[in-house]
């Protein structure tokens, strides 16, 4: 493309010469000719073939027509040059973006292959910034790296050759000037860059020192160091001034030289070229063309110089980035799924001379050598500071920083690829890792290992291939249903519910489901079933002693269990400001509040709530679960509350509140529920006013606002309200002892009969766990983390303190459940030094860095190989030494 552009460029330089010489000066019309021919082409051939082959006889023009034809031809080549530049720039940009995409992806993919200890050392923000920001100029430059010098260099060379063709002397002058520019300017610029870096460093140091002095200001005052501090800052500012002054001098010297060289060349052209023109060795057209060609020469040369400097900068940046990602400590890449050889379920775990030391060389795990039979249930018993955690983490591939070898069958644990290891085992850490999303997403993420088939290749897939990215996207169905014993999404949902039930989260799931709204796409049958259930539940409750535990939605009565807003509207507000009618609704809402004398009480309530929130929550970290659960304000709004309080508590503050502040305070009051928040803000008079306002809203709500509120209606399903409200058509009395538990129990018993329990569990799966799982309690997070591993039924389950969030009883229950489910498979569980695991096939006890194996063949697990004729000969509860030939070995432990 670049080469193809050059003839067009040459022509755009050549035609002005012809315009001046042939058209203006009339060289084409010499000897009294009134017409001249243009666009005649002939192909020179040997005499034997006829001399020449005429392709076109051309067109005859008079002088004005000739001038116009050449001018339009010039315009044509100018347009062609522009088009070439456009296409080349577009291609260059696409190449840059493609390479940037490839570079970013390769860095990310490489980071994903870092060994565990290395990835733990990576600072997430730094790595993200490196992949996102720092490689941007590198990727951006890749397009320029070859195209820019080729395009600009050839363009400059064309212009230079053109000048040389017109006049060797003028060409020599132009070449000399270009050479000066090409060598002197970069040299001067290098110093400019060095000074720029120096300025950056000095500014950073100055900022650091000022910050330090602000921090230490009390000490500076105590010791009278103000003058000394001022002198230091003055001195630093002076140093900065010197650097900046030198930088300015250099910068403008370069600019001056550039300008001088650009201006001085035409001087030579006018003087020398004019001299040749006067002597008749150079015609005027050539001189004009040379000057025009030279005008085109400096920009490419200047851009080439800039390109060289960018190359140097980019090289430094590239090397910095590459250093962070270089190194040989990488996990093997994932092979294709059909290339993974399954590891036999009975392949033993072979640990040979495994030693882990700390930085001072003290052994944390000393020469552990043991062979653990598979399948079996294995307990690692020891304190957390013993070798227990190191060995289980090595087994779980969470660290590879050890000597010695750990094999499962013929495969080294540390050398397995992620795909191979994930097929064999699952490691559950003590800290549950949670992603933003629903409970179902957090559990089933472990099954997303089956890339969906690509239906048809399109532009996106082709682009991915060209950038070295995966052609499959994260959209589509990635679930490995077979691993979860499911065949489709609905069956998978049932498996998730079952698995969560096995880790004791069934009730929690039920509770979450009750808080969720009815699905937006709920069928009429489902809505009818909910209404039937509502009626049945109301009858059953009325017939029991629990009727008083529910405060029903009644238009004529204030409901203590509802928020002020819910009481006022007697419905659920759709708080979508983009919905038509939102502005009108707010105006109407405020006018009702004024009319029913609710404005001042609402502001006063808002102020009391703000004061309480500031007092109670001010020193809790943002995002703290207690804050999330009990605060009446959003975490983002907490910082604004002191200002609101100051405005509201000023003299006549309530009357002079800006409307935005008033709205915020009214919003705070709107969420208030007396039995829950208990600030004693609801008086009988206020209840009366709210009931009056409720009637006004129902009566006068403008038509445009009808969609803003979904009113509570006993005959309809309220799609904006939680399913619990829909079923009970009321709220549980929060201040009656055990009311919540009794009603929950009642619903748990009733709903299966009404055919709605599957819906509730399914809705519970949609519960949002919040960022980092903050909407869940610690034990719920741990349960989800366990379920994530259990759902894919790995051959080997490794549980490192996975039960630390649970109480003793629940831990024992969970271990029993898991062991029952994992009969015939391998489970490795850690226990504290004071615990006595029962029924495990093999128990490895850790005393400091030393490990000792105890094999219990009387266990209830099915891990024993019943076909093994020697099994009965092995001693129960026996310690076996490493030099024996027994399958179970005791380990030698040495401390150095």
């Amino acid at each position, binding site marked *: 493309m670049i080469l193809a552009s050059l003839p067009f460029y040459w022509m755009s330089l050549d035609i002005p010469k012809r315009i001046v010489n042939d058209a203006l000066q009339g060289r084409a019309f010499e000897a009294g000719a009134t017409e001249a021919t243009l666009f005649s082409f002939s192909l020179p051939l040997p005499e034997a073939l006829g001399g020449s082959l005429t392709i076109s006889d051309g067109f005859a023009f008079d002088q004005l027509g000739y001038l116009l034809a050449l001018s339009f031809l010039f315009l044509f080549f100018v347009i062609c040059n522009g088009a070439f530049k456009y296409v080349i720039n577009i291609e260059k940009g696409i190449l840059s973006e493609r390479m940037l995409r490839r570079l970013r992806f390769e860095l990310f993919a490489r980071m994903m292959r870092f060994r565990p200890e290395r990835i733990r050392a990576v600072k997430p923000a730094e790595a993200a910034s490196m992949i996102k920001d720092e490689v941007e100029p590198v990727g951006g430059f890749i397009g320029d790296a070859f195209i820019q010098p080729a395009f600009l260099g050839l363009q400059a060379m064309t212009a230079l050759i053109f000048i040389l063709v017109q006049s060797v002397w003028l060409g020599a002058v132009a070449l000399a000037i270009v050479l000066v520019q090409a060598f002197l300017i970069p040299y001067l610029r290098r110093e400019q860059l060095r000074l720029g870096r120096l300025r950056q460093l000095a500014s950073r140091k100055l900022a650091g020192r000022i910050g330090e002095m602000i921090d230490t200001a009390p000490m500076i005052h105590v010791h009278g160091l103000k003058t000394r501090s001022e002198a230091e800052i003055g001195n630093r500012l002076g140093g900065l001034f010197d650097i900046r002054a030198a930088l300015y001098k250099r910068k403008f010297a370069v600019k001056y030289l550039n300008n001088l060289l650009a201006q001085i060349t035409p001087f030579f052209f006018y003087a020398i070229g004019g001299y040749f023109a006067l002597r008749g060795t150079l015609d005027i057209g050539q001189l004009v063309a040379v000057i025009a060609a030279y005008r085109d020469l400096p920009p490419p040369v200047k851009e080439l110089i800039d390109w060289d400097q960018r190359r140097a900068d980019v090289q430094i940046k590239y090397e910095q980035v590459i250093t962070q990602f270089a190194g040989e400590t990488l996990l093997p890449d994932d092979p294709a799924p059909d290339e993974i050889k399954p590891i036999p379920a009975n392949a033993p775990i072979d640990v040979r001379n495994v030693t882990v030391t700390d930085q001072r060389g003290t052994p944390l795990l000393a020469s552990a050598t043991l062979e653990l039979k598979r399948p079996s249930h294995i307990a690692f018993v020891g304190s957390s500071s013993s070798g227990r955690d190191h060995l289980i983490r090595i087994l779980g591939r969470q660290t590879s920083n050890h000597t010695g070898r750990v094999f499962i069958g013929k495969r080294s644990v540390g050398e397995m690829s992620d795909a191979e290891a994930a097929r064999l085992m699952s490691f559950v850490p003590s800290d549950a890792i949670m992603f933003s999303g629903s409970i179902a997403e957090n559990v089933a993420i472990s099954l997303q290992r089956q890339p969906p088939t690509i239906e048809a290749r399109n532009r996106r897939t082709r682009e991915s291939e060209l950038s070295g990215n995966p052609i499959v996207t994260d959209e589509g169905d990635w679930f490995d249903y077979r691993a979860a014993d499911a065949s489709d999404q609905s069956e998978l949902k049932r498996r998730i519910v079952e698995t969560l039930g096995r880790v004791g989260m069934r009730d929690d799931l039920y509770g979450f489901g009750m808080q969720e709204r009815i699905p937006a796409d709920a069928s009429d049958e489902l809505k009818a079933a909910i209404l039937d259930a509502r009626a049945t539940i109301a009858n059953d409750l009325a017939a029991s002693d629990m009727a008083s535990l529910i405060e029903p939605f009644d238009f004529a009565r204030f409901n203590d269990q509802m928020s002020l807003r819910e009481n006022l509207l007697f419905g659920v507000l759709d708080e979508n400001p983009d919905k038509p009618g939102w502005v009108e609704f707010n105006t109407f809402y405020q006018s009702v509040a004024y009319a029913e004398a609710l404005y001042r009480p609402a502001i006063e309530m808002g102020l009391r709530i703000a004061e309480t929130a500031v007092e109670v929550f001010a020193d*809790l970290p943002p995002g703290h679960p*207690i804050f999330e659960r009990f605060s009446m304000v959003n975490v983002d709004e907490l910082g604004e509350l002191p200002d609101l309080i100051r405005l509201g508590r000023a003299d006549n503050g309530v009357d002079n509140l800006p409307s935005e502040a008033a709205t915020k305070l009214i919003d705070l009051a709107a969420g208030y529920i007396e039995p829950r*928040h208990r600030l004693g803000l609801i008086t009988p008079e206020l209840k009366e006013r709210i009931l009056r306002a409720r009637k006004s809203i129902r009566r006068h709500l403008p038509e445009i606002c009808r969609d803003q509120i979904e009113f509570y209606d006993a005959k309809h399903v309220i799609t904006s309200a939680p399913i619990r409200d829909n079923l009970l058509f009321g709220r549980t009395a929060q201040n009656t002892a055990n009311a919540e538990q009794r009603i929950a129990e009642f619903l748990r018993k009733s709903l299966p009969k009404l055919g709605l329990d599957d819906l509730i569990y399914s809705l519970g799966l949609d519960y949002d766990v919040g960022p980092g799982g903050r909407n869940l309690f610690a034990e719920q997070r741990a349960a989800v983390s366990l379920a994530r591993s259990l759902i894919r039924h790995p051959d080997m389950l490794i549980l490192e303190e996975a039960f630390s969030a649970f109480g003793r*009883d629940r831990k024992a229950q969970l271990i029993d459940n898991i062991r029952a489910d994992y009969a015939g498979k391998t489970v490795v569980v850690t226990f504290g030094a004071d615990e006595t695991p029962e029924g495990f096939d093999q128990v490895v006890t850790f005393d400091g860095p030393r490990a000792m194996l105890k094999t219990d063949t009387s266990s209830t697990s099915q891990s024993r190989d019943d076909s093994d004729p020697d099994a009965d000969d092995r001693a129960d509860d026996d310690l076996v030494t490493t030099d024996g030939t027994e399958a179970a070995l005791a380990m030698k432990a040495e401390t150095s």
Partner: protein
Amino acid sequence: MSLTSECELLECIPLFKHVDQSKRKLIAMSSDRLTFGPNEMVFREGDPSDAVFMMLNGAVRVIKQDEERSIELARLSGGAVFGETGVVCDTKRSATIVTIEETTMLRIDSRIFMELVEQVPQVAVALTRELADRIERTNQRLLSQTAAAG
């Protein structure tokens, strides 16, 4: 009874005596205020320890079930805290609590209580002090019983 008056009552409870007013409000806010009628069971021996109770008023009986009979171990009234040992040590309820008269309590879920202990150092210190006091009192009782027996 409002949050403020609950906080005043919490101030009378030794466990929270040295805790700031704002933290007492946080505890009250994290709790449910429940009213039990006379002779209502708060929890039964052997139940999971799922909450801590702080008595604001009223009275309860602490009952231990022997093989054949129920033994009343103690009576607690306003200002008492119970259930925290089971929550902290993660053991089942060691006794049954039954109200004697209408009783109002603050009930704080065990998971929230543990989060408060973890996140609010004042609550952790107060709890540690209370548990240490109990051990000390038990030791003193054992000593005096041993001396009396000797």
